[in-house]
């Protein structure tokens, strides 16, 4: 398995700085677009079967990079290639509806994550069991605690086995008991998926699971290599 799974070539991504129509018009007359560069010239090649971590300070472009890989932000320059279906695990439970039951929300969230109807119906029992919601599954979601919603979110999100799994800081939800279970579940997903990219501040986890860690600073890759080296580079950066 040495085929390329994700390939980022010279990725540049800008965000507009002028956020109103007057600014856009004045940019137009100055013939200069004022913008904020979130990623500048990122090159990253990930092989199938690799588990890659991305670290960096807040606002260094980690989450943006995952969004570029998943297609949320098409790059302004450069090219992104990926092999197989991609699943981004972030903000568990996006789009939940408080007025529908847990069961209906499982189907809704599953469809938002891109699963087909057959896939969801066949995995529904497994999802309900993992969420540990018991009879609450047929109650409206507004009666749920935050932890219960997070459990349902994780249960749905982890039910699929994508080729490429992108994880953005989703560890540590629910009570300690479930947190352990969810960590194990995510680790199982990491093992199940052929390629994984993780964004996290938990360096312990990075050292445990990642083959390679990339350090991002101000939209550029500063260091790339085995976890220890990159984490050390991160602390050097902090000075």
């Amino acid at each position, binding site marked *: *398995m040495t*085929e*390329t799974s994700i*390939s980022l070539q010279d990725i540049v991504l800008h*965000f*507009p700085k002028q*956020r*109103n*129509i007057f600014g*856009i018009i004045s940019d137009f007359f100055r013939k200069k677009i004022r913008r904020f560069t979130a990623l500048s010239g990122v090159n990253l090649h990930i092989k*199938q079967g690799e588990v890659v971590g991305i670290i960096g300070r807040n606002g260094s472009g980690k989450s943006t990079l995952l*969004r*570029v*890989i*998943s*297609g*949320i*932000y*098409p*790059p302004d320059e450069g*090219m*992104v*290639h*990926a*092999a*197989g*279906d*991609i699943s*981004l695990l*972030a*903000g568990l439970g*996006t*789009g939940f*509806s*408080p*007025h*529908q039951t847990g069961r*209906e929300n499982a*189907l*809704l969230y599953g*469809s*938002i*994550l*891109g699963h*087909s*109807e057959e*896939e*969801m119906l066949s995995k529904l029992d497994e999802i309900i069991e993992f969420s540990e919601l018991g009879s609450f599954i047929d109650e409206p979601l507004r009666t749920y605690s935050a932890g219960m919603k997070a459990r349902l979110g994780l249960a749905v999100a982890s039910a*699929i*086995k*994508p*080729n490429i799994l992108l994880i953005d800081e989703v560890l540590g939800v629910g009570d300690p008991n479930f947190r352990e279970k969810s960590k194990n579940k995510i680790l199982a997903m990491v093992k*199940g*998926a*052929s390629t994984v990219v993780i964004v996290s501040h938990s360096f312990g986890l990075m050292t445990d699971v990642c083959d390679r860690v990339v350090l991002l600073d101000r939209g550029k890759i500063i260091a790339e290599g085995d976890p220890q080296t990159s984490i050390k580079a991160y602390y050097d950066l902090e000075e």
Partner: protein
Amino acid sequence: MGQNGPTTPVLRQIGVKSNPLLAPINTLKEVRSNRFLVRNLIRRDVRGRYRNAALGYAWTVIEPALLASVYWFLFIMLSGNPDEMYAVWVLLGVIVWGSFSKSLNAATNSLTGNVRTMHLVFFPRSIFPVSGVGANIVVTMMSCLIILPLLYIYELPITIHLVWIPIGVLLAGFMALGFGMMMAPLNCVQRDVQHLIRFITRAGFFVSPVMWTAEMAMERGAWGEAALWNPMVLPITMVRHALEGKSVELPDSIVISSLVVSFLIYVVGTMIFSKYERGAVKYL
């Protein structure tokens, strides 16, 4: 799909710009391949709307009926004796116009209102305006159930022409979708757009045949004739004539121009949406 079999998945480019010229067709394809998602989003929207209401879905009928009775009262105050069917024509006008205006607002706000979802998952963004409009069409179809008692009260014949009722509703929704998709990316940059659209839907009420009918307009000379060129005349009149047991009776030129305009609005709307949507979401 999704299985890690021995066959290695093929490398494909992510975030490729699709040709905006193909957008009218691509939008349909995207909705088709994401129909499970569209269905769930519509259900979420419709369920959320009538939550915690004792009368629940009955409001889909009560709301237009109450509105129509107020307009009927207003009309009697202004002009005296209308024909006995007038209250019914106003009711149908209120239902179809209300559907259009709510759909248009939903489509215009479809990108700005779904920021969280857009930042966390990727699927074709046309799904947002389509499901927003779809939810309003579903609610309107429920409102249309009021037609059943009307048929009985006014002893109207049940004919095949009743199929024009859903067709009229769909036509109005189709126009709202095209127009809303035109506006949604611009609304990401400046929210003034949504206020402007809200004003347009309120003002449009008076220049569309809600409180008046196409027949009344035709008796009012040149201004009345000009008013018929409004593309909303066709769907509203279509629904009214369907209840009378006939297919729409408007001058051919009006019917054809309304259909052409609706189609063009959809074509241009989807093109603008597909061209600017990716840039616009960066403003959110």
